[in-house]
């Protein structure tokens, strides 16, 4: 009897360029994690398993045609919103309600929204004539503001920011007129002082600390100061892998999660930072390229928005670690320890790969 394999098993649909870039970043991440965790192999293994799972998710999604993904979009978005509401009701977590325990796995529904929101906005704009009309702008803002506010309530400022950004990028790429765009920007600038009023006390402290970290060097300023010392003492070529004193002696807080870039910069120096930034930039460029050759509006907008969102991750995390942006809980993509974020990111890359590999079959 002859075994007949489906065609996609013989020639899996993927983008080798994206894959190589991702593997390089993931490899770097695991290496840094080994050092940042105090050479805790068990932790590295856990993270490797999660990333492996993420890669599988990515490869599976990349086999699914964009058309199918597009059809699922409203359901995904709807489920996401329901889960977010559920999280507010029964969520678990330290002081916040981010996690939802569903028996086998605990995950953050807010992560799902990082994908679902740009997908949904793109889904909404896809059949409509662009640039978007006022009504479309209003609907789009509604689509992204509902989850953003729900996530902000958890509270998780970092994720809310990323979700909002992904929606706005979709709108931007859809051709939102410059006057409107500038109008939004002006409005945001005017509303900034009002934002101070709605910030929680710990968030205000972060802003205060950002403005003057030395005011409380052992308290709120500790993270920023120690992170900057770690980065600065790395110099041009770094202290060498596993030799970072700021990290190994536990001066850097959250060194395997949000501040892992400080560990990396300490041990690999400016040259390491340069290489890593170039890798991220190439990843973004590849994403934008895929978007530009996509055959339909949904695919184009989604791939473009996801690429631009990746930039926000890198910028916010890098700015925080180097002390030019306030502390916001945004991980360094694919390098910070943590499962949900990595799987979400990889699922996003899966969609890009799907868009890339199915570009010829879309009518």
């Amino acid at each position, binding site marked *: 009897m002859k075994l007949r394999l489906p065609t996609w098993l013989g020639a899996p649909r993927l983008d080798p360029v994206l894959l190589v870039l991702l593997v390089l970043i993931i490899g770097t991440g695991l290496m840094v994690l080994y050092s940042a965790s105090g050479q805790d192999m068990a932790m590295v293994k856990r993270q490797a398993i999660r990333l492996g799972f993420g890669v599988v998710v990515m490869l599976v999604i990349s086999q699914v045609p964009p058309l199918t993904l597009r059809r699922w979009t409203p359901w995904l978005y709807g489920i996401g919103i329901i889960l977010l509401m559920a999280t507010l009701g029964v969520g678990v977590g330290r002081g916040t309600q981010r996690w939802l325990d569903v028996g086998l796995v605990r995950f953050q529904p807010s992560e799902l929204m990082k994908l679902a929101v740009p997908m949904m906005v793109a889904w909404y704009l896809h059949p409509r004539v662009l640039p978007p009309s006022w009504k479309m702008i209003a609907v789009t803002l509604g689509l992204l503001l509902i989850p953003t506010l729900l996530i902000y309530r958890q509270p998780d400022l970092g994720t809310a920011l990323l979700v909002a950004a992904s929606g706005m990028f979709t709108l931007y790429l859809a051709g939102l007129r410059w006057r409107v765009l500038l109008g939004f920007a002006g409005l945001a600038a005017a509303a900034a002082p009002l934002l101070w009023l709605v910030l929680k006390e710990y968030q205000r402290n972060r802003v205060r600390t950002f403005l003057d970290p030395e005011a409380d060097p052992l308290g709120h300023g500790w993270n920023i100061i120690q992170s900057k010392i770690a980065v600065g003492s790395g110099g041009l070529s770094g202290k060498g892998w596993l030799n970072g004193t700021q990290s190994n002696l536990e001066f850097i807080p959250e060194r395997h999660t949000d501040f892992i870039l400080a560990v990396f910069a300490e041990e690999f120096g*400016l040259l390491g*930072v340069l290489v890593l930034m170039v890798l991220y930039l190439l990843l973004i460029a590849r994403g934008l390229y895929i978007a530009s050759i996509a055959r339909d509006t949904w695919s184009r907008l989604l791939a473009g928005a996801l690429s631009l969102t990746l*930039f926000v991750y890198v910028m916010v995390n890098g700015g925080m670690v180097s002390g030019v942006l306030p502390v916001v809980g945004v991980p360094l993509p694919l390098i910070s320890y943590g499962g949900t974020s990595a799987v979400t990111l990889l699922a996003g890359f899966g969609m890009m790969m799907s868009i890339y590999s199915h570009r010829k079959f879309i009518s």
Partner: protein
Amino acid sequence: MISYSHHRAIKDQHEEQQMFSRRAWLGFFIITFCLVALFSRFVWLQIVAFDSYSTRSENNRVAVRPVVPNRGMIYDRRGRVIAENRPAYRLEITPEKVAGKKPELEALLDKLSKLIVLSKDERASFHKSRRHYRVFDSIPVKFNLSEREVARFSVNRHLFPAADVVPYLSRNYPYGELLTHVIGYVGRLDADDIASVDKGNYRGTRFIGKIGIEQFHEKALHGTSGFERVETNAGGRVLNVLERDDAIPGIDLILSIDVAVQQAAWDALGDRPGSVVAIDPIDGSVIALVSKPAYDPNLFVHGISQRAYREVLNMPGRPLFNRALKGGYEPGSTLKPFVGLAGLELGVVTPQTRVFSNGEFFIEGYNRPYRDWKDKGHGWVDMRAALEQSVNTYFYQLAMDLGIDRMHDYLSQFGFGSVTGIDIPGEGTGLLPSRAWKRAARDEPWYPGETVIAGIGQGFNVVTPLQLASAVATLVNGGARYSPRLLYAAKSAGVERAKQVEAPLVLQVPVNDPVSWQTVLDGMDRVVNGSRGTARGVAVDARYRTAGKTGTAQVYQLGEDKEYDEAEVIQSLRDHALFIAFAPVEAPRIAVAVVVEHGGAGSKAAAPVARATLDAWLDQEIGRGRQP
């Protein structure tokens, strides 16, 4: 105003793609710009400000900690350990790690006291001592933790990031009160100490010598502090030592004290307050220095509680008072050999000069009698007999012939009236009266009657037991007067042989005629060995020949005509018993002075104590074949 035509319902894919491409390119351009800006921030941190951050990282990582030198041990002359360092544990807190405010610290202390017993005193002194420490120094809270306390803390250490149990060496004095008045003790470094020491050398030191040898030889015993550069984590725990400059341990001291002799003298005193000082006349080294009662120095090492201190302070007999050094006693007849020597050397009398004693002595023109201790007197006596029987009349006459100032000048050569210069602090000077002294101190003229009683060691005369012993040593040593020394030898770490310490020679009393000196020594020999000696019988069965002199210091003045009945006088009003002695007579190896407070007559109370002391020393000296 933006307006869209709803008639254009057909999407223009091409136009959309063009629009997208423009937006994507613009986005990519902005992204690149932002990432370059972010990268330039890293350039600033890692290249421009590298030196500054590198230094701060190094400062983070490396802490310089003092290495406390081990305090020198103290041994007695025979190598017995009399002060040692025992491993112990203390509890320390770094206040800055708990915000450093009092309520937080109180909460921490409350939590800690569930594991380690903390008294009110300990908590109060912790708060008080805080201001003497630098920021991020760890401050001791309690010393000498029990094994249980150490174990309980160790299990719960993770709950107390600001507290730690630290090993250290605790001073211990195995002989307790026996040697307190010699060695003294170390105690916790207090504010006054910190102000007076070299702060660099004492950064990690927690104990300092408070009195006695521990204080006098503090510098030698302490040693030189080292330092180590250690790698610490953010919690301040030491991970490893990068560089170490070892401390130079304190010097081990060997004292001239012989614990066996000290013990014998101590035991012989029984429960009577008193003092015994024994000196080797050959080199001025102190063999025994007893002051009784005493107290346990170990109580003071870790800080004595207020209550315990008051208890010690108020104990009968004032145990904190070092009688050997500071106790001022009327020398009584123990001064007679020195007055006699003054008469002989200054040519006032010869060994053959005789004086008739009929029991009473009068100054010409006065009718106040000065008595002999024997009712009808001793008859004709020369110097030797006068010493043997302690004939007051002889010395009344001699004193009148000498005059107070000549007597003062001659006796001062033996160290009376001034400190001996022994190597422990706090010595008293005693008092050797003179016209000048009385004029200066009391603004009164000198009266002849005062000269008379000065001749038998009464009146204004005050001596310390140490002065008396030192004077005897000088007398038997042909006038060579040494500063008594407790430090016999010193041994630096890593050195095989201890370095002998010589007692400094203060002066050589001029010898006009050796016969004068021999005459006085003969007289003292007859005190013990003569048929009429006041201390005859004290040396029965001794393996060596002893010489001495009894003395009685009046505690209260008897009425002129009252008979002194010892049995009727309550003990606290009884006279102090004194005895000075040396042995062997032919080649003296020990000079001793004994004071037994309220002991009554010197012969009965003090002489046996001297005998016990001499035995303890000479039996082993002779046994060791070291008899010259």
